[in-house]
């Protein structure tokens, strides 16, 4: 009797402890650049579906993302589980052993995202992150400003896109007819948006070699294209002293005739009730090929996470799951092919005639003109040095001298990489 009651008590204790373990809540820390409301909604939806997993979403400014990840994972901080990975930084993060291998999900990822995004996430044959968003660029134009200058609206047909010379000619006419600015870049001075200029003009990405660690930014074609970029600002066609965060406002407030920016701004510009705008494919250099930037944020899991299994569940939800990835995208372009179709259709319909070519332009650019940033462990240093060089050239520095200095700085920085 005494023995049986002991067994009963032990069983009850074991059952209660098991129930306790099942009910135990796991909290995951998720670091991502701020300003993306889609992720907050995705976190809420995931938690509703998985009450035993709590996601502590930590939005931080974009500029601090790299330093936060480096300082936390550099000290093997196990409290950080999931974080945003900017596509061209995968190689550097892999080199520092800051990412978990996702290779077992490769076939699933290929089906969900297609070949290109998976290639970007793959280093030395292994896949290290899951693409969450994708990107391309659109040319926005202000209908009223073009009409005032008697400039025809550019065609939405990607095979009839403007050349850069044609665009600048029309931008100058619009400025002469009263527009404050003829043309404005969205992410001014950033390599991401400027790489297509150099690629379209036949100058290449600026890096070469098997590891993409040999700078070629001192070439004649690079100098020619950089000088062209500097002239935009020297001639007063585009504004100096305006930072990327302030750029979209130039177009939204009707100050710029043309604007070269991400598709997500369609939503922003539709809110500007006074603005009548249209969409066109981005220009190219005559004699060259049309090129658009691509890739965006991916999601990685820290190898120091103590909850890798639960972390993967969340990462799958916001990337591979069509429903979850659609929520996580918000106004951004989802990398997931199913969610992308819904996103493209929604944005095509949302603005009537203004946004009618949205889906056709995006699909064409992603399939035909998208070029990724170089995959290199030196990319982070490359981007930093080039962004500063572009900024100097915008502010009036001589293109040849600026690029020679950049070439020297790149060689010194790459020599320090091991």
């Amino acid at each position, binding site marked *: 009797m005494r023995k049986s009651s002991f067994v009963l008590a032990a069983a009850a204790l074991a059952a209660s402890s098991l129930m306790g373990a099942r009910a135990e809540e796991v909290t995951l820390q998720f670091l991502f650049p701020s300003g993306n409301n889609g992720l907050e909604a995705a976190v809420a939806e995931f938690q509703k579906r998985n009450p035993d997993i709590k996601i502590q979403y930590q939005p931080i400014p974009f500029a601090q993302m790299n330093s936060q990840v480096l300082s936390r994972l550099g000290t093997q901080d196990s409290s950080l589980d999931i974080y945003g990975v900017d596509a061209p930084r995968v190689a*550097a993060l892999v080199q520092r052993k800051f990412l978990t291998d996702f290779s077992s999900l490769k076939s699933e990822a290929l089906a969900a995202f297609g070949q290109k995004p998976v290639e970007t996430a793959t280093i030395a044959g292994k896949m290290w992150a899951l693409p969450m968003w994708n990107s391309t660029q659109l040319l926005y134009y202000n209908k009223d400003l073009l009409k005032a200058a008697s400039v025809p609206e550019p065609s939405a047909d990607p095979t009839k896109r403007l050349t850069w010379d044609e665009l600048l000619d029309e931008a100058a006419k619009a400025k002469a007819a009263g527009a*404050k600015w003829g043309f404005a870049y969205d992410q001014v001075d950033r390599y991401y948006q400027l790489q297509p200029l150099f690629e379209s003009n036949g100058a290449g990405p600026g890096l070469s070699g098997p590891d993409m660690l040999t700078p070629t930014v001192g070439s004649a074609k690079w100098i020619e294209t950089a000088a062209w970029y500097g002239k935009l600002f020297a001639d007063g066609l585009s504004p*100096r*002293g305006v930072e990327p965060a302030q750029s979209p406002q130039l177009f939204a407030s009707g100050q710029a005739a043309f604007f070269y920016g991400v598709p997500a701004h369609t939503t922003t510009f539709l809110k500007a009730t006074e603005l009548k705008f249209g969409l066109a494919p981005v220009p190219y250099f005559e004699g060259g090929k049309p090129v658009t930037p691509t890739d965006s944020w991916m999601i990685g899991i820290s190898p120091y996470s103590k909850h890798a299994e639960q972390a993967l569940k969340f990462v799958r939800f916001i990337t591979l799951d069509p429903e979850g990835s659609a929520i996580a995208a918000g106004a951004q372009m989802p990398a997931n092919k199913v969610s992308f179709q819904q996103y493209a259709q929604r944005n095509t319909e949302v603005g009537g005639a203004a946004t009618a070519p949205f889906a056709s332009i995006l699909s064409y650019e992603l399939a035909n003109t998208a070029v990724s940033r170089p995959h290199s462990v030196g990319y*982070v240093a490359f981007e930093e040095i080039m962004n500063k060089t572009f*900024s100097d050239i915008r502010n009036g520095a001589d293109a040849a001298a600026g690029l020679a200095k950049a070439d020297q700085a790149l060689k010194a920085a790459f020599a320090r990489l*091991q």
Partner: protein
Amino acid sequence: MTKGRRGLGGFLADFLRGSREGWAAFLFLAPAIAMVLVLRILPSTQAIIDSVRLPNGSLGLGNFTFLLGDPGFQNSLKVTLLFALIVNPLQIALALALAVLLNDRVPAIGLWRTILLLPVAIPQSISAVIWSVIFRPDGPLNAVLGALGLPEQRFLTSVDQALFCIIVMVSWIGVGYWMTFLIAGLKDIPASLYEAATIDGASAWQQFRHVTLPQLRRPLTFVLVADTVANFLIFAPVQILTSGGPEGSTDLIMNNLYTRAFITNDAGGAAAQTLILVAVVVTIVSVQFRLMLPKEGQA
């Protein structure tokens, strides 16, 4: 009771002998010692070790030789020294002038002091964003210049003007702060000294030169040293306003260091740069202390 002024050595001897007083002293000192160890000694040791660890994993002074030959670092050091040479005297002179002015019977004195101190309460990052709009080529400052019939300026986009824009912004924040220390110093000067000087027929300038300045030596030394160190460590305004540009003209040393450590991931180079920065700051501060020592015959 004979142990009134025994110093650390005496307590250490007591502690080593295991006496009660020695243990008590140790327990009182332990939290401070632990803090110094964790927050100062360990990170400094780590920085020294990292500074001699080369990118290929071997040990040596290669990080220092690389830095000293690096045009980016040389430019950053040059810009920082130029910045320090202008901003420190400027801020201290303005803080002193305002302190003297607001130490007198000025109407609504509390309001003026609050207005001058207010920028310190605003986070530097927010101040920088506000100033970035003010300094925009199509911003309000150029609108004011235009209204006055003056030519537009390029401000942060000009190699020649960007550093001065940073100096204006950090002085807007700092002057009111340093002024409060000097006002406190002015309040401590006995009124009898001014009365005696007045009886002796000293003019206002002579009173300032021979009474106020010598009596302000201690708070001035503090402000000089603390302001110098604070200005060497300026980071957020540069990062937000210019990122070190145009053409490296505002690449103050903390911005350069941050880029090296967290953007280009050169941990060894960044640690070596930290040590060089500490050496430069310590040297300058030592010279300042020496210059501010009272001359013979002065209090």
